[in-house]
């Protein structure tokens, strides 16, 4: 039995819009590649019956840059800056995953200071990413003001990062064997100031968006995904946890210094948009909790364990490591042939795996719900396409 590949036109022809019925007529519309609610250049082919969605066919690849192929030509150290540009809202976590994979395979030891700073930065990044998500989520549902509030607070975190790493978005901060630079002397002060500033703002977020009647009506019971189907669809991160599966790498396989801190993993109940929303809001609180525990206890030590110019060679073999970014699990699968460049590097991106749950959740709902679902999955398109 062999399978012959088909084209997009075949795919559309295989799901014909039913135009025969007198009462209603089904039709296809294109959402994207340029559409305000697809967060980039994602394209959704939606089959509609009036306002009701019958089928969703995501078409991706409008920003496929071939990062996996490029990785085969770059040394491990050089590859890290590409990982920034995957899911640019979790740049530091992405750096960390690649470094973790390299460190694990090459056997590079790090100290507690490095791990603590990495953890702190990853949690700050998670807050920053969720702030942006919250703003964009509001905007997608029509509450434009939420977008600006989210960004107003996000700038505070961006400032902290800029001070330490020198960049606002694509930081390239975590390196194999340590950190690019040591933290800025004002880092601790800045983070504390931000925590004090942000805690009351979370209450404001709840007031502006969460408590709103319309938001509740738009989210409750919409886009329900059972835990079985969420697992089978390979979702991770808040999408999976929203469906009630407690799978958070920070808890199940602690890396960094997560084993030393107290925090809870928020888990949703039925897996609707509201649960996913709530999980993210709660995660921001938990991240604050983690940061509060760590910020006063950064141990002394070096910030880089190996010479920055040292050639890193990985032993021959296959290795897979992963970490929890703001959107789910980023996995890096490296097949090494013993040289200083990967023979094959594969990125298991959280957004790629989360995206397809749209096809399961979308049908039967309305276009407006599709926007809400897409927003509650919180996709970053360059991470899908790589």
């Amino acid at each position, binding site marked *: 039995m062999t399978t012959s590949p088909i084209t997009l036109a075949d795919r559309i022809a295989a799901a014909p819009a039913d135009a025969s019925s007198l009462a209603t007529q089904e039709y296809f519309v294109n959402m994207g590649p*340029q559409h305000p609610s697809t967060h980039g250049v994602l394209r959704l082919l939606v089959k509609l019956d009036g306002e009701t969605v019958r089928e969703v066919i995501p078409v991706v690849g409008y920003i496929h840059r071939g990062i996996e192929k490029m990785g085969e030509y770059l040394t491990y150290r050089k590859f890290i800056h590409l990982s920034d540009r995957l899911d*640019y809202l979790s740049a530091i976590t992405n750096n960390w995953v690649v470094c973790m994979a390299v460190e694990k395979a090459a056997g590079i030891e790090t100290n507690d200071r490095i791990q603590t700073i990495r953890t702190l930065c990853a949690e700050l990044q998670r807050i920053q990413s969720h702030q942006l998500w919250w703003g964009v989520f509001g905007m997608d549902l029509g509450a434009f003001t939420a977008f600006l509030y989210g*960004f107003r607070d996000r700038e505070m975190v961006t400032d902290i990062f800029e001070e330490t790493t020198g960049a606002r978005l694509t930081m390239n901060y975590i390196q194999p064997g340590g950190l690019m630079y040591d933290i800025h002397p004002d880092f601790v002060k800045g983070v504390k100031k931000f925590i004090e500033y942000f805690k009351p703002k979370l209450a404001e977020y709840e007031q502006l968006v969460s408590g709103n009647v319309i938001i509740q009506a738009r989210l409750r019971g919409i886009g329900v995904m059972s835990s079985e189907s969420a697992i089978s669809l390979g979702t991770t991160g808040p999408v999976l946890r929203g469906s009630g599966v407690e799978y958070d790498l920070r808890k199940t396989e602690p890396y960094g210094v997560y084993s030393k801190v107290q925090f809870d993993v928020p888990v949703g109940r039925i897996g609707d948009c509201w649960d996913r929303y709530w999980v993210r809001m709660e995660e921001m609180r938990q991240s604050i909790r983690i940061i509060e525990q760590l910020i006063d206890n950064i141990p002394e030590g070096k910030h880089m364990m190996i010479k920055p110019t040292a050639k890193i060679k990985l032993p021959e073999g296959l290795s897979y490591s992963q970490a929890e970014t703001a959107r789910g699990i980023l996995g890096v699968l490296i097949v090494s042939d013993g040289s200083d460049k990967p023979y094959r590097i594969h990125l298991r991106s959280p957004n790629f795996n989360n995206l397809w749950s749209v096809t399961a959740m979308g049908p039967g709902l309305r276009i407006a719900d599709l926007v809400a679902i897409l927003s509650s999955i919180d996709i970053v398109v*360059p991470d899908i396409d790589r």
Partner: protein
Amino acid sequence: MDHVPGGSFCVTSVDGIINWAHANSLWPLTFGTACCAIEVMMAAGASRHDLARFGAEVARPSPRQADLLVVAGTVVKRLAPRLRTLYEQMAEPRYVIATGSCAISGGPFMYNSYSTVRGADQIIPVDVYVPGCPPRPEAFLYGLLTLQKLIKEGESIRRPYVRRKPVLSVLPAGMTADQIRSELAALLTRDSTVDLSGEYVQNVQAGGSKQ
């Protein structure tokens, strides 16, 4: 300006008003491909940097109503025809700002990538480039101001077949505003227009004058 005999003063001041209106009302299209979109479309429009001060916050989701196409991020082969379509759907006068290394040259994805287009200007004409990876919102604001200057000092409505050379938004440090202005003016008057009339016009005429 030479179209109305003896009326140059009147026409130039009308031109000035038109340019002023175009420069101060650049409505961007909500379009972003990668990281740059966060910085130049979102952060620049958000409270701290506030694109609205320059009258450019009315982001239109429909290309018909937008004046400014910000190519924010990498352009890949698959997106290229769509980007061209978007540009063609926009109504004249339309302006393009390419932000970030990717949209300028392919940036970090220039080498060893089988699908990244090396610069948005291979697909659509670009007016202003804003370097950075991604550029800071301030850099984008500077690019926007450069474009405004360009429009204010240029012609009111672009002549068909004539297209200006693009201008880099970041000029060497230590320059005064007057120097920038004179440099821009010199650029515009001396050698900044590319006359495509020869070959292009012939092609258009040969291809028939269908609308």
